[in-house]
C-alpha cells in the first residue's frame, strides 16, 4: 500500500476549498486562521513561536523536518501553532544534535498537520482570496462536516490571544553582566528576545500580559520591552491602557510586533488586518533614519495604519517595508520610545536587525546617565 492512502488527511478552507494530503503528527482535527510562511529554514523556531498561536501554518519550502529537533532552538516550551501544512514532511532527520524527529515533536505536543499538499496552489489561493480560516483533520473523513466546521471557526479579527500564551507569573532571567534592568511585558514572548537582551547584559524580568503599569514601574526598570504575541491588538484595550502609562513614565521602551502595535494604539494610532500578512525571513525593510536596508524576519497579520500616522502628534515612521510600503517601525517624537513590526531577534531569520537591541540598550544607558527632569 502506498503512503498516500494509509493516512488520508484533509485541509478544508472557510470558503469550501478542499485539499487532500497525508496526515502527520498525532491523529486529530484542528482549526485556526491559515497563514503561510516562506522561510526555507527554521521550522522549529516557527512552530514554537507564540505569535503563531491559533494559526495553521503552511510552510512553503519543499521539505521540512530534515534536520530534526534541537533541544535549544525553540522559542517557547512547546509547539504553539494550531497545525501545520506542508509539501514534503521528512520522517528522518540527519543532524547529530537533533534529539527527536519533527514527527516525534508533534506527537509529544499533541499537534497535527497535513503533508503532500499542493502548497503552491494553496498559497496562490490565499494570496488571491485573502486571509481565512481552515480546518485540518486526519480523523474525520467526512468533507462536508469539515466544511461546516471551517465556517464555524471564529475570525482572527477582534480576537485576543495573548492571555493564552503569556506567562502566568513573573520570572527573572539574569543578563551576562547585569547592569541594566529591563521589564518585559509578555504578550507571547519569543525566548530569543529575552536571549538578545540577556546577551547585552540586561537583567530581564518577565511580567504576565495583564500586569498593571504601576506594578511594572514599582520594580524600577531601566527599560521596558513590549514583546511579540498573537491575535488582534485592538482586542486588548486593557493592555493598551497600561502601555500608555508605561510610555508616560519616560523610561526607554522598545516594542516588537504585537508590542509595536500595542504601542501604536496607546499613542492614538490605529491598526488594521492585512489582506495577507507578512510571514517569512526575507522581508526587505528600509531604515528611514539611516537609509540602510535590512532583511528581516516577519510574522504579522495586523499592521499599523499608515493613514493614522499622518498628523499624529506623538509618533513618526522610522522603518518602511519595501515590498508594500507598509509601516515597519515607529518612534516617539519626544520620548525614548520606539518599536518595529518585524522581529529583530530573528530566530528564525537573519540577524541584520539585531542592532535595534544595541540601540535599545544604548538608549537605556544614555537615559540612566541623564539627571531626572
Amino acid at each position: 500500500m502506498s503512503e498516500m492512502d494509509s493516512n488520508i488527511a484533509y485541509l478544508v478552507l472557510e470558503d469550501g476549498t478542499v485539499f487532500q494530503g497525508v496526515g502527520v503528527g498525532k491523529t486529530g482535527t484542528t482549526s485556526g486562521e491559515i497563514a503561510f510562511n516562506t522561510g526555507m529554514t527554521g521550522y522549529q523556531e516557527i512552530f514554537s513561536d507564540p505569535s503563531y498561536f491559533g494559526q495553521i501554518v503552511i510552510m512553503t519550502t519543499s521539505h521540512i523536518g530534515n534536520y530534526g529537533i534541537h533541544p535549544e532552538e525553540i522559542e517557547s516550551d512547546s509547539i504553539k501553532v494550531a497545525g501545520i501544512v506542508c509539501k514534503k514532511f521528512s520522517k528522518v532527520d540527519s543532524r547529530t544534535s537533533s534529539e527527536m524527529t519533527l514527527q516525534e515533536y508533534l506527537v509529544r505536543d499533541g499537534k497535527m498537520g497535513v503533508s503532500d499538499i499542493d502548497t503552491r496552489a494553496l498559497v496562490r489561493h490565499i494570496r488571491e482570496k485573502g486571509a481565512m480560516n481552515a480546518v485540518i483533520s486526519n480523523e474525520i473523513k467526512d468533507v462536508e462536516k469539515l466544511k461546516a466546521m471551517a465556517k464555524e471557526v471564529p475570525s482572527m479579527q477582534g480576537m485576543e490571544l495573548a492571555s493564552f500564551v503569556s506567562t502566568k507569573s513573573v520570572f527573572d532571567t539574569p543578563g551576562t553582566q547585569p547592569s541594566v534592568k529591563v521589564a518585559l511585558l509578555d504578550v507571547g514572548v519569543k525566548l530569543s528576545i529575552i536571549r538578545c537582551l540577556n546577551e547585552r547584559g540586561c537583567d530581564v524580568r518577565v511580567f504576565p500580559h495583564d500586569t498593571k503599569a504601576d506594578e511594572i514601574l514599582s520594580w524600577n526598570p531601566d527599560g521596558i520591552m513590549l514583546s511579540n504575541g498573537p491575535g488582534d491588538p485592538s482586542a486588548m484595550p486593557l493592555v493598551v491602557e497600561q502601555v500608555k502609562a508605561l510610555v508616560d513614565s519616560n523610561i526607554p521602551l522598545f516594542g516588537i510586533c504585537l508590542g509595536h502595535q500595542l504601542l501604536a494604539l496607546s499613542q492614538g494610532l490605529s491598526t488594521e488586518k492585512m489582506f495577507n500578512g507578512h510571514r517569512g525571513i526575507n522581508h526587505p525593510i528600509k531604515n528611514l533614519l539611516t537609509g540602510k536596508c535590512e532583511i528581516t524576519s516577519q510574522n504579522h497579520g495586523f499592521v499599523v495604519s499608515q493613514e493614522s500616522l499622518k498628523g499624529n502628534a506623538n509618533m513618526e515612521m522610522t522603518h518602511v517595508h519595501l515590498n508594500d510600503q507598509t509601516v515597519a517601525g515607529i518612534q516617539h517624537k519626544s520620548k525614548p520610545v520606539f518599536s518595529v513590526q518585524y522581529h529583530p531577534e530573528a530566530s528564525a531569520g537573519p540577524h541584520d536587525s539585531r542592532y535595534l537591541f544595541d540601540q535599545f540598550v544604548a538608549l537605556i544607558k544614555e537615559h540612566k546617565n541623564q539627571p531626572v527632569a
Partner: protein
Amino acid sequence: MPRDTSIRSVLIIGSGPIVIGQACEFDYAGSQAARSLREEGIEVTLINSNPATIMTDPVMADNVYLLPLETESIEEILKKHDIDAVLPTMGGQTALNLCIKCDEMGLWEEYGVKLIGVDIAAIDITENREEFRLLMERIGVPMARQATAKSFLEGKEVAQDFGYPLCIRSSYTLGGAGAAFVHTPEEFEVSLTRGLHLSPIHEVMIDKALLGWKEFELELLRDKNDNVVIICSIENFDPMGIHTGDSITVAPAMTLSDSTYQRMRDMAIKMMRAIGDFAGGCNVQFAVSPDDAEDIYAIEINPRVSRSSALASKATGYPIAKIASKLAIGYNLDELDNQITKTTSAYFEPTLDYVIVKIPRWNFDKFQGADRELGLQMKSVGEVMGIGRSFQEALQKACQSLEVGRNGLGADGKELRDQAAILHSLRRPSWNRLFHIYDAIKLGIPFRTIHEITKIDLWFLKQIEELILLEGEISKFDVSNISRDLLFEAKQKGYADRQIAHLLKCLESEVYNRRDELKINRVYKLVDTCAAEFEAMTPYYYSTFDEENESIKSDKKKIVVLGSGPNRIGQGIEFDYCCVHGVLAAKECGYETIMINCNPETVSTDFDTADKLYFEPVFWEHIFDIIRHEDPVGVIVQLGGQTALKLAEKLERYGIKILGTSYRALDLAEDRGSFSSLLESNNIPFPKFGVVESAEQALELSDDLGFPLLVRPSYVLGGQKMKIVINREDLETHVVNILHDLPGNKILLDHFLDGAIEAEADAICDGKDVYILGIMQHIEPAGIHSGDSFGVLPPYNLGDLIMAQIEEQVKTIAVALETVGLINIQFAIKDDVVYVIEANPRASRTVPFIAKAYREPYVNYATKLMLGEAKVKDFNFKPHKEGYAIKIPVFSYEKFPNVNKELGPEMKSTGEAIRFIKDLKDPYFRKIYSERNLYLSK
C-alpha cells in the same frame, strides 16, 4: 544612491574560449550585463575572443571586439573609444586576471577608466591565499590550517607540520588546476612539483584537508550603500573533497538548520565587507563539521559572477548578473525592482518552494588515459539542472537530463551488482558515483558503510533509499492493476514512464496511456523567487505532478525550440547560440516561442530569451507532455545539436511537425547507405565505404576497401569512438570495442584519404535555392576531427576548380536532401578531387563562427526558412569579407595531465577562439601553417 551619471560608456570583458572550469555561464552573465547596462542608455563595448557567444553578437552591444584577451587588445579599444568604466566581473577569472594585468600596466589610469563591480584589492586578496587567511583571522572567520609555499623545500616543511591528508592548490589558477588531495608523502611530492609549475607566481597553498565536512555555497549581492542580500544557498551532495564544479549540488540547502545557516550568512557578509568596498556579487564557500559543534570554516570567496551564480540565478529566478551590473553603476538594491514580480523590491532574499539539483556532465570517454577520479580539480565539461517539488523529483529529472544512456536514477536494468566494484566506486568517486550509491543501497550494503565511505549526509542517502523502496512496491504490480495513488507517487518522485515501464515490465507507451487514463498529468509551476507570495510576471516554468497547473496556454501560433542539453565535447555553446537566435527569429515572425532546455549555464534558459521557458530535461516524455499542453505548430530540432536532432524520429512517429528539413531527409543524411546512393546518383565522389555489424564482416570488407580505414559507429557525437586503423589487428580490436559499448550499432568503415586536405561548408536552403554561408579550410590534414582543427575562412589555398566543385556539391546535396534550413558538409580533397565525407542537415559548430566573421545573422535567416516565412532569395546577403578568420581550437589538457594529447578523429577540444588576419603573410597564420607539416610527416 541613483546611478552614477558619469558612467556613459562601459567595457565588459568576456571569458574567452570554453575550457573546463569556465564555460558558457559567462556568456549568460556577459549577455545579461550588456543588456542591463544598455537599458540604462550606457554605451557597451565588449571584448571576447570566443565567437560562439551571444554576448559578442551585434545585437548585444554597441561595439563588439572579437580580439584575443590580451592587454594589447584592451589598449586598442581604449584608444578608439572613450570608455568611462570597465566591468571585469562577468568574464570569470580570465577577465579578472586581464583586468589586473591592465591595472599593473597603468592602462586604466592612463585612459581614465574606472573599475566597477569589484576593486583590485579585492581580487588580489581573494587570490592571494596567504593574505586572505590573515584577513580572515583578523575578522574572526575560521579557516582550515593553511600555509603557502614558494619552493619545494618550504612545501615539505609544511606537510611535516600539518600531517596528512592535505590539500594542495596553486595560486592564481582556474577551476582548481593544479589542485590535489594527497594522503602520502609520495603523492605530495608529485602534486607539489606540478602545483608550483602551474601557478603563474610559482606558489602553492597547502591546507589541512577537511575530509568529509559538509560543503555549502552562498551567493551574495551588495550595493554601494553596503546593503547585502543572499540570493541562494547551495548544498553540496558530495562533501568536501570533490571540487564544487564536480559536485552534485542542491538548492536550497537541505540539511542546514536556521541557526547554522544564519551563522553562515553572518560570516559571508562579514567576509564580503572585509575584502573590499565595492558594489557587486560574491560567491562564498564554506565547510561545516558534521558533528554537534557544526563548526563553520570559510573555504574561499570569489568577488565576481561565477558558475555558481549562474546556477543560483536559474535556481531562484533572480538574475544576479543583471542586477550586479546595475549595482556596479551606482544603483542601490532598494531602488531596483524584483525582475520577476516587477512590483516588489530587488532588495530581498529569494525563497524557493521547489528543489533544484545540479549534476555535472563529464566526458572522460574523450580523454583516454585520464585519471577519472574526482577530486579538487574540476573535470566536468558541463552540467544539468533538474527542478522538482521535492529533492527526489529534482534528482530524477537531473538524471534524465544527463544523456548518459540512463532514464533517471535506477529502474532501468543497468545497475551494478558487483559489491567490490560498487565499494571501489564509492571510495574513488567518478562520474557514476551517484548511480553506484543507488546500487549500493539496493544491494543492501549497510547505510553506515556507505556513509562512512562517502560522508554524504544521511538525509540524502535516505531519500535514495525511499526511491528503492518505492520501486519494490511498484514491482509487485503490472500496468493494469497498479493503483492511481502508487503511480501518482512514482510520478511525483520523478520517475519517467520508461523507468516505471521497466518496473511493471511493460512498454513506455502503456504506462503513458495508463496514467493518461487515470488523469495523472504533468502540471507546470512557476519559478518566481517568492514561493507564490506575489504574482510573477515571468514565464519560467518547470513540471511536476500536483494539483494546479499555472502555465496557461495562449491561442497564439507558437513553436518549440529544443535545446542542446548539457555542454559536452562536440556539443557546446555554439548550439545555445543557435537556439537563442532561432527563438529571436521566430519571435520576429510573430510566433510565441517556447524553449525547452536543462542546461543552467546558458542564455537559452534565461527567462528573458523565449516567450515561455520550460526548464525541463530534453527527454522525450517531458517534451511530449509540453507539446501536448502547448499544441505548437511545430518543433525546431535543427538548432539544438545531436540532442535535439535525435528526437526527430519520435516527433515524426507521434505526428508532430518538424519545422524545416523533414525527418526523412535527416535520417537519409545519417544513414550511410542511402546517403551514398544519393551521392552516387548525383555523381559526387565519396571515399569507398561499407557498413558492418561484426568484426568478421569488418575484416572481410577491409580487403575490399583497403587500409587505412576510418572506423566509426553511427549516430554518435563529435567523433565518439572514431578511429583510423592501419591493419587488420587494430580493426578487429576497435570493432569489438565499439560493439561492446554500443551493442547492435551499425559501424561504418571508410577508406581513409591519407594526407587529404579537409574543408567544410555551411549553407542555408529553402528546398530549392541554396546560399553558401561560408567555406572553411582546415589547416591540419584529414584525420584530425574538424572540431579540433584550425580552420580558415575563407580557404587559403584551394584553387578555383576545387572551390567550384565544393560549391556545386553543396548545392546539389542541399537540394537533393530537400533541406529547409541549415546544412553542413565536410569534404576531403585529394589529387584535385573533392570527396564528400558527411552531410549534417542541421546547425553546426561553425555556423556561429561564420556569422560572427561575416557579420551576418545566418541563424536568423535559417530559422525564417524553417518557418516558411521567407525564401533564400528574400535575404539581402552582405557578408563582410575582409582578410581571413582563423578558428583556433582550445583544449583543457592541463586538467588531465596523463592524457594522450595527440589529435585524431575523436574530438577533444572544449572551446574555440577566433582570430582575424589581414592576409596570409600574418605571422600567426604562418606559425600554425608550418605546424601542419608535423602531421604530414607522421
